[in-house]
């Protein structure tokens, strides 16, 4: 028996998320209770005052993300956490955060929707909403953890990406990973890589352009910054009819993410080069692949996989490469098919894309179900 290290804990995913946020420098949290995300709020309410931060329960989800955006402009790293129904309510402000280039982190611990659905049961139905939930032309950064440890590390990364690209970042968790408990070895605070937003220098005036990611002042620092959800120029001045100002702003906001897909993309892969059948997975569903892959290999099947830790921006080159190598790509999801269409678009006929869907009751796709699908598809090949 080995001795347990003192920094090894048996934490719930939601607790790991809260601790990851604090390690990344988050000092403001606002939220409204909802299963399966409430433990994040509860933990932040306990922990943030201990580190000089503030946690508030707001009257609803709209207000929660609203004050998180405000806190960010006051200079704090800010977060809110919810589930599908609350995430729907937050969409308008997510667009506001995008156009005002406000770094903040929004956690959506998915449950079975639509609407109230099955409130305590797991689902992966918010994948497209996390990309296209608010209106207008925008690009989202969305991360997908598959363990308690990743609830910590990907929350840290979400904050770092938010600060680096000055944009809201969504941590798209799910009930299973949020509520699950498993061991986690927490890195010491000095070994956590923390990125902070670039601050302006005296005399700077352009906080909304000229550079791909402009510097961001806080209110009260003397920069007289105007923050508006209307189309604005580099200096924050509203231009509500000029076509060029709108084109320039919205293209830059999208390009600052689209031009950096490779840097933002994070994934785990196995045997891409040598596989005939591939799996494309993310989140809780990916926990079934390890056993299924081992058993498929024991039956002589050439199998590989990509597990996305960054869902959006979608890593087109990576998935295109997978489609060039594999004959078939199986996409297991706890929804009726969302990422599979993205895979199909990118594969563009190079590989056959096969969805494997399961919804209801929070029941995960089991390794047996996945293996059965792999075997059926391998048989068809012969």
């Amino acid at each position, binding site marked *: 028996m*080995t001795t347990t290290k003192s920094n*090894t*804990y*048996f934490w719930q995913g939601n607790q790991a998320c809260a601790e990851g946020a604090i390690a990344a420098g988050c000092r403001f949290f606002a939220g409204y209770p909802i299963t399966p995300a409430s433990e994040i709020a509860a933990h932040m309410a306990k922990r943030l005052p201990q580190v000089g931060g503030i946690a508030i329960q707001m009257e609803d989800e709209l207000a929660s993300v609203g004050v998180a955006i405000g806190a960010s402009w006051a200079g704090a790293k800010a977060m809110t956490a919810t589930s599908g129904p609350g995430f729907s309510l937050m969409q308008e402000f997510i667009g506001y955060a995008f156009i005002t280039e406000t770094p903040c982190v929004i956690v959506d611990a998915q449950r079975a929707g639509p609407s109230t659905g099955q409130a305590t049961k797991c689902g992966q139905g918010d994948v497209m909403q996390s990309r296209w939930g608010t209106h207008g032309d925008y690009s989202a950064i969305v991360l997908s953890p598959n363990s308690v440890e990743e609830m910590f590390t990907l929350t840290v990364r979400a904050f770092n990406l938010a600060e680096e690209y000055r944009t809201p970042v969504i941590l798209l968790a799910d009930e*299973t990973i949020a509520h*699950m408990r*498993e*061991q986690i070895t927490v890195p010491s605070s000095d070994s956590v890589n923390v990125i902070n937003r670039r601050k302006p220098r005296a005399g700077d005036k352009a906080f909304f352009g000229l550079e791909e990611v402009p510097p961001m002042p806080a209110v009260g620092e003397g920069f007289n910054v105007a923050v508006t959800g209307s189309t604005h120029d580099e200096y924050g001045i509203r231009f509500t009819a000029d076509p060029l100002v709108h084109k320039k702003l919205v293209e830059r906001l999208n390009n600052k993410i689209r031009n950096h897909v490779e840097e933002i993309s994070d994934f785990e892969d196995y045997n891409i080069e040598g596989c005939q059948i591939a799996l494309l997975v993310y989140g809780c569903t990916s926990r079934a692949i390890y056993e299924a892959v081992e058993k498929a290999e024991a039956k002589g099947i050439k199998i590989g996989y990509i597990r996305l830790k960054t869902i959006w921006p979608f890593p087109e080159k990576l998935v295109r490469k997978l489609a060039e190598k594999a004959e078939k790509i199986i996409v297991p999801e706890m929804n009726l098919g969302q990422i599979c269409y993205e895979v199909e678009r990118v594969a563009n006929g190079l590989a056959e894309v096969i969805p494997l869907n399961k919804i209801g009751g929070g029941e*995960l796709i089991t390794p047996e179900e996945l293996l059965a699908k792999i075997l059926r598809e391998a048989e068809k090949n012969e």
Partner: protein
Amino acid sequence: MTQRVEVRISGLGGQGVVLAGQILGKAAVYSGRNAVQTQSYGSEARGSAAKSEVIISDSKIGFPAVRKCDVLVTLSQTALDKHFKDLKKGGVLLVDVSTVESIPETKVKVFKIPATETAKKTFGAGIYANMIMLGALARIINLVNDKAMEKAIRESVPEKTVEANVNAFNTGLEFLT
């Protein structure tokens, strides 16, 4: 050889089956092993079906849910009726006979513990039945040391109830010693 055990603790919301699973998993990690705990419960605060699952292993744990369990713990008749089919052939069934009336005929090893009755009599509240069952469970799976269990209990229950919970756990241990 790699040691691995999969446990399902089942009952009704309010009986503390989720807490029992959390404590077991925590103690397993404190004993230097890998553990994953998952749960399933209804939207209601009390009375709907609840279960907590724990996988303890010396190697990395992929799939976190229990499909077939080595040990099934039940604190209600409906839970036993629902989950009995998922108990492995060579598994162990641990039943609170204060709350379960009928146990199906079976070749698996069955331990009958009057947990809720004992909890009421000894600790003044049936709510401690989960710790009594946890004590018996810890003795059966034998992968988690008792000190780690006690530490995990102390960290996981309200301060005022620590001693009663630890005593209830020890009572459960003694049932099978």
